[in-house]
């Protein structure tokens, strides 16, 4: 049975500033959703709020998985329920080897009941699986011994996110501009990687400005965000249209949100 990630009337603020103002979205396992929208419309905020970033405070509404409210869960608990966020800016953790980090992460996510200090998944099985997954993603085995994101190029960091996605096998994957800042080869590698991994067991939310990622991972639904709300939902052709013509038409169709957007921008520049 496929699980659903349900977002209802979600309001989120950062500090005193409200960013999300009533987002509704439902993602089932096996579906691919694209989330588009101009800068500052709240796309990354939605991703962080879904993952449980402590700075992003939910003031109203709910996030639930299969009917269970996860509003109060921390990122670790959400990860163990099957949530995953591929970060737009993956963080460097100096001195921590990719393999050591992943073995702990995989142990926790696959055995959500695991307590601190309890044994990890078998080293041998883990190594074999890691090696094979890296091979599938055309990654050099040497990556596993490097320090996490330390000295990685932009493309390497994004591939590392995809590797983590592959190893953790989430039920719901959120990709925050995984294709940004990459040259076209790197975008292709990441896009192909994602296409290999997604399937009936994974619901995917792709946040993107570009279309490339969506060429390889055709969305079942495209959502447009403006001033903290999802204002339109369509199919893959909507993504295509936005890519070709930008957001001017969308703003015209939603004057109220467009006005709010303008207000926000003015406040930000003051």
């Amino acid at each position, binding site marked *: 049975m496929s699980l659903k990630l349900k977002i209802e009337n979600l309001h989120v603020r950062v500090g005193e500033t409200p960013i999300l103002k009533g987002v509704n979205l439902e993602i089932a396992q096996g579906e691919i959703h694209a989330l588009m929208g101009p800068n500052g419309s709240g796309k990354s905020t939605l991703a962080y709020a879904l*993952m*449980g*970033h*402590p*700075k992003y405070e939910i003031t109203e509404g709910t996030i639930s998985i299969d009917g269970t409210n996860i509003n109060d869960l*921390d*990122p*670790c608990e*959400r*990860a*163990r329920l099957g*949530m*995953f*966020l591929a*970060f737009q800016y*993956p*963080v460097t*953790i*100096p*001195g*921590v080897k990719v393999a*050591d*980090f992943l073995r*702990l*992460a995989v142990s*926790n*996510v696959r055995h*959500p009941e695991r307590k*601190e*200090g309890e044994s990890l998944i078998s080293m041998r099985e883990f190594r074999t699986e890691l090696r094979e997954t890296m091979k599938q993603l055309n990654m050099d085995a040497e990556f596993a011994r490097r*320090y*996490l994101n330390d000295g990685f190029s932009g493309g390497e960091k994004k591939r590392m996110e995809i590797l*983590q996605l592959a190893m*953790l096998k989430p039920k719901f994957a959120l990709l925050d501009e995984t294709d940004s800042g990459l040259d076209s080869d790197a975008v292709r590698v990441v896009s192909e990687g994602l296409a290999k991994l997604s399937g009936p067991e994974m619901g995917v939310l792709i946040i993107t400005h570009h279309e490339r990622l969506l060429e390889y991972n055709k969305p079942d639904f495209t959502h447009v965000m403006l001033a903290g709300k999802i204002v339109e939902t369509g199919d893959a052709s909507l993504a295509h249209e936005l890519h070709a013509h930008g957001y001017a038409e969308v703003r015209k169709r939603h004057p109220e949100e467009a006005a709010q957007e303008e207000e926000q921008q003015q406040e930000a520049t003051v």
Partner: protein
Amino acid sequence: MSTDTAENSDVGVGDYQFGFHDSTENYAFTSRKGLDREIVSQISEMKGEPDWMREFRLRSLEIFLEKPMPRWGGDMSELDFQDIYYYVKASDHQEKSWDDVPEDIRKTYDRLGIPEAEKKYLAGVKAQYESEVVYGSLNEDLAKQGVIFTDTDSGLREHPELFRKYFATIIPPEDNKFSALNSAVWSGGSFIYIPPGVHIDFPLQAYFRINTQNMGQFERTLIIVDEGASLHYVEGCTAPTYSSDSLHSAVVEIIVNKGGRCRYTTIQNWSNNVYNLVTKRAAVYQDGLMEWVDGNLGSKLTMKYPAIYLMEPGARGETLSIAFASKGQHQDAGAKMVHCAPNTLSRIISKSISKDGGRSTYRGLVKVEKGAENCKSNVVCDALILDPESKSDTFPYIEIEESQVAIEHEASVSKIAEEQLLYLMSRGLTEAEASAMIVTGFVEPLVKELPMEYAVEMNRLIELQMEGSVG
């Protein structure tokens, strides 16, 4: 594992933080509390030492009494020199039982995966680890090559000439108040001599040394690595050294002769009632290499600055140090490099972690004497502060009396970024696991220099230190 701990196995002297109250009746000999000529003479007599050593001890006592307390470093206002037993000789039959060992200590030993026999040894239940067989064969092998590896008291008895030639030449009693104290009341420690050209290709561990006496408070170690020889010596213990002693004041002297190499690795984890005031110094001659690898956890106050004197051209020195200061602890640690000759090289890498109100201080000196041209020195100190209550300071002193030198100093202070925690937690790590992983990564460049089993234990120790520290 080590003798530091072994030597501290006189649990039960006085009161201590774990609530032990044990009489000293079971000990063969206990000097009265305090320090004076009579006690120092008594110690020397008990050990059956030659006159010169007794005179040396008495002279050192005078120096100790004359010298003022240091006005820098940590707070020692609660340290009462007259409230300490300076010499305790344990009886042959220790009466302590495993059940008397506090549960948290036992649990820690379990978590560290320390074997049963060893646990009892560390806890002071057993006088010594049952390793005679291992030690015996090891000793025989080394002896064939002319290596001397014994405790310092035996060194004085069995190798009087060699001993006297080097003893207190690197750290004389006049050096500082605590080296004077150690010189007056020293007991135990390691005495090692590696003959010219002999390479020992495994780390010599104090752990394997058999002590007839359990002394740890004022140990005295003397190591001589002769021309072209090499040694890796490991002392200290990654299990919490649990001891009633309120003062630990060791002296370690090392001589690295021409072309010799010596690495001295220490990991110490004292119970947090201990003042750990240690003087460590090495003199390195032409083309020789000295490396200190120094890990400091626990204690109330640690003041320790392993020094290397680069005496002749081509000599090199390197110090890697890790300090972890937790609640109620002050780690005042660092390194000294003294360039006395041209073309000498030194490097200091120091990493400190402060948490739960702990305080860590890096205190270092790089000194270049007149005439020591073309010296190079590189100092890197990084501090990681885990919460707003904790503190870190850096005092890098540089004294240069020569113009043709290259001295570099870099320092950084960082906090665990919220973004790092979020990133790791979003992969299913708990907050404590995430913090521990970040800290482990921070010290990784040093931990990877440790022998394998120490590296594993160091990481486990850090995890233990980190547990429950957040949330």
